[in-house]
């Protein structure tokens, strides 16, 4: 079953910005789907259209087979939204916000109280239930929006950068929480700038750039497209010159650190053999950036960016 289907989605803002161009996207039930793209790519516009806060210029949107134009009541009932920007009443308390939200979805007061307790506890906000929302910290506000989005048990949960500005510990507990509700059956679409987050949570991802989907695949095959990876090697002793290694591109970062690019047809064993030939002792080694991040950066490199390396990503059919 398709949890979400977008076809030929276009958005032309009144300002003249063509934010989406013929976006087609399918997210199947049960998926944990990542929506990635640089600032201004159109992620929030897509999410806004699905949740009916943004009017589409053209195209179709279906949520579990219900058209948002013809069957909005059903489509909206199945959807939970965590927006990018805080949008709750800053004068209301945490529990009022959750209870009202439950009311908007037709949940009885009694059930609403139970669910509020459940989600506020799971998201670590129960002790703050009587706090006025504007007195919460940024990370707490993010969690409040997640609790609010779940109170009507949506089958599709869309989160627009839910972990922005959240500390690492809380972020990881949010990941565990989202993983769990996904395993329990909620389809999740996550937009994020943290590629580590996408790599760790999502099975499938779409990359959107300038209003177009430029990649839509599962994370594994996407990573396979990474034709080269850069590693940082800390070495024992000091270097005066970067060693010449046959078949490898080496750039010194400083006198005790080298950056080496390894193509996917080369092995790390080869690299270490070459280093050994040159008597270079490696103390430690790490990826220069998260693998998905590297791929992402390479994909989004534009021809106009002249001094960057040419994109080393295989063309996909």
């Amino acid at each position, binding site marked *: 079953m398709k949890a979400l289907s977008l076809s030929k989605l276009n958005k032309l*803002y*009144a300002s003249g910005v063509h934010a989406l161009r013929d976006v087609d996207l399918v997210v199947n039930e049960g998926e944990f789907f990542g929506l990635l793209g640089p600032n201004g790519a159109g992620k929030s516009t897509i999410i*806004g259209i699905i*949740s*009916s*806060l*943004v*009017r589409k210029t053209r195209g179709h949107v279906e949520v579990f087979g219900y058209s948002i134009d*013809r*069957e*909005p*009541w*059903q489509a*909206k*009932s199945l*959807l939970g*939204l965590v*927006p990018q*920007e*805080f*949008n*709750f*009443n*800053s004068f209301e308390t945490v529990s009022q916000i959750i209870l*009202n*939200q439950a*009311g*908007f*979805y*037709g*949940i*009885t007061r009694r059930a609403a109280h139970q669910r509020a307790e459940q989600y506020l506890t799971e998201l670590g906000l129960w002790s703050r239930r009587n706090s006025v929302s504007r007195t919460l910290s940024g990370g707490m506000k993010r969690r409040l929006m997640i609790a*609010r989005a779940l109170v009507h048990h949506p089958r599709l949960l869309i989160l627009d950068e839910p972990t922005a500005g959240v500390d690492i510990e809380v972020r990881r507990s949010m990941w565990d929480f989202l993983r769990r509700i996904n395993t329990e059956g909620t389809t999740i679409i996550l937009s994020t700038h943290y590629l580590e987050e996408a790599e760790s949570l999502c099975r499938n991802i779409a990359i959107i750039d300038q209003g177009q989907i430029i990649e839509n695949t599962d994370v594994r095959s996407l990573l396979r497209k990474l034709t080269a990876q850069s590693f940082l090697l800390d070495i024992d002793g000091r270097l005066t010159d970067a060693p010449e290694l046959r078949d490898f591109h080496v750039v010194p970062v400083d006198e005790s650190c080298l950056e080496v690019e390894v193509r996917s047809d080369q092995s790390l064993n080869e690299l270490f053999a070459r280093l050994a030939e040159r008597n270079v002792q490696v103390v430690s080694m790490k990826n220069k950036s998260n693998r998905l991040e590297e791929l992402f950066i390479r994909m989004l490199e534009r021809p106009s960016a002249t001094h960057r390396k040419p994109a080393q990503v295989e063309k996909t059919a």
Partner: protein
Amino acid sequence: MRSTAVYPGYARQTLIALRTIAWKETHRYLRIWLQTLLPPAITMTLYFVIFGNLIGPRIGPMSGHKYIEFIVPGVIMMSVITNAYMNVVSSFFGAKFQRHIEEILVSPTPNYTILVGYLAGGVGRGLLTGLIVTSISMAFTHIHIQHPLITISVAFLTALLFSLGGFINGIFARKFDDISIVPTFILTPLTYLGGVFYSIELLPGVWRELSLANPILYMVNAFRYGFLGESDIPIQTAYSIIIVFIIISVCLSLYLLRRGVGLRT
């Protein structure tokens, strides 16, 4: 929303959502009573003291009634109008400004439910203020209400109409200034010129004709008829005018909500 009424859960969702919005709106003006309920009580007390007690006796009777008796219905109506309007316009614009209106827009709540929920807040505050001002007026004069049913129905319909006005204003408002333009430049002048403090019979020909184009005149007079059994205009005309304006405003509000004017980009 088309063709959704047959789905299971629709009626229940709509009713609970309506109750939620209406209660949220009511709770809002009760919580900030210092800003919502107290000021009209103070202002209207001053009107009664100054126009009723101090100046009133010098003015003498108006349409056959003591001056204070003449102005009481108008002053009550004035507070109903202003408070119904201000409640909806400030609450709805505030929800837009803080963006928490999105909570409702994203939910399956139908547009008419959103509208009725907000109107419930406006009508509630308008009538409650009217009741407060009526109680205060008792301290200054004793009026025996001639037609209670007319009094209550006119107050209700007027509160409804001005709540709708506030809603439409709230939809179009883009900044805080926009919510005070209509009350300052339209509502207040029309109310003062709507026969709150004088009978239009006192006006010279042209001005009297012009006054008849002011819809608030009909509401004030119908309400006064309920209180004193005395009116400058026929009561049926007043009801018809109020009801026609209500129907037009409801249609316009629903149309604007459906188009997402001021709400969806």
